[in-house]
């Protein structure tokens, strides 16, 4: 395991609605990148842990994203599953904004 973080450019901050999410595919995997109500950004695995549904299609309210199919919900800052049927936490990845560009560390 390396201590060097590899940042991957993902999108512009303006590509994501405030209190919104977009899907980001990279290296054969899919992720969701969120813009919180305070304009901070976060990144999680892209698929709900209950069934393989893209979370970026779900509603983001405050710091919560809801699966568009089964209404399971996660705190996207920590990946914590906060409503059934989701019970397994989401993996999270570091995300930051540099000069209006969002980059994520997927290592």
């Amino acid at each position: 395991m390396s201590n060097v973080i590899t940042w991957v450019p993902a999108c512009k901050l303006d590509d994501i609605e405030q209190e919104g999410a977009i899907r980001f595919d990279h290296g054969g995997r899919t992720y969701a990148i969120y813009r919180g109500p305070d304009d901070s950004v976060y990144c999680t695995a892209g698929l709900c842990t209950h069934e393989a549904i893209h979370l970026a299609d779900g509603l983001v309210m405050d710091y919560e994203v809801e699966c568009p199919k089964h209404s399971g919900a996660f705190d996207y800052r920590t990946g914590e599953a906060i409503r059934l049927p989701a019970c397994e936490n989401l993996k999270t990845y570091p995300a930051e904004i540099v000069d209006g560009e969002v980059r994520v560390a997927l290592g």
Partner: protein
Amino acid sequence: MDRILIIGAGESGTRAAVALRESGFTGSLTLVGTEPHLPYERPPLSKPLDGAVQMKPICGAEALEAAGIDYRPGISASRLDADARSVALGDGQTRVYDKLLLATGARPRQLTCPGAERALDFRTYADAAAIFARAESGRQVAIIGGGLIGMELAAVLRGKGIDVSVIEMAPKPLGRAVPPRFAARLHARHEEEGVVFHLGQGLSEITDDAVVLSDGSRVPADIVVSAIGVQPDVALAEAAGLAVGNGILTDPYLRTSDPNIYASGDCAAVAQPGGGHMRFESWRNARAQAEVAARNMAGGKEAFAAIPWFWTDQYDLGLQVAGLPHPDHQSVTRQLEGGELEFYLDGGRLVAAAGLGLGNGIAKDIKLSEMLIAAGVSPDPGALADASVNLKALLKSARAA
């Protein structure tokens, strides 16, 4: 009170068992189901992966055991004695309960024409396995019934290159649960995909290689699937003298006419604020009623008031409906990129919303609509029609008001 018995281990019965533990119930808890498997989710049955039917357990054996749920698969309930508070089970045992939940679900309506026994049902894992084991390219499948289940199956089978005919008594498919605008769009999409519709037609016979329609024409088919709807499984309740109608009748707290017996899910017809009883057949309803019934059995008194909601996926299109759209409602349409929403107003108040779009593209907006419906708002129809007006902003201003 220390013994709770649940009859029916589908989505509702199983969710209720887990929810009872979440509500702090610590007594004995038995979950009885007629099917031989672990409790499983039904929605994936119409979505085979690589040709194989998906068996997705609602929870594993370890999780049931860890929660102290005594799960008894493969057992039917033969008699309920509400006075003795006991249920005789198919394995010869009699279980005594303090509180009972009936989550007996629904079973497919049966065709009555000659040859009806040749038609396959589509409800259980075993049903789905039987259909998909035979359904391969080059086959001809006739689906009796153009409702949600029949049309989902048609889409999946067309995706496998199978010839599909849909036979429906009504003049149009999807007439019952889907608003006309979206039913027409889905119908058109099925026709584009090559599904052959025989509408306004009854059946006169099912033979080895065809379905004979009431006008005498023959629809060639080597597999016939019956998808003409379900009826609530009320037999146990009815024989025990509980009040039944189109389902086991309950009050708003999901209690049947016997105060120690509750009902939830497809089998339950719940008293409505405006009078009458309503029964809903959906995944979410099964879970939402289970949760309310569980909390009430554990000592709560919560009226069931969730807004009905369902989804269906056909080809790459996803439809979601929240609330109960009615032809008398004022409808307002909003065009989206890759989809369309329709809102339904009753005396100005938003009471239902539906959307059809690519994938889960309309899911967010339907969820926000559901929250707007729950908030009891009467939005400006112009704002609803205008895609530049953010529904989340409408919700926030309604909540601030």
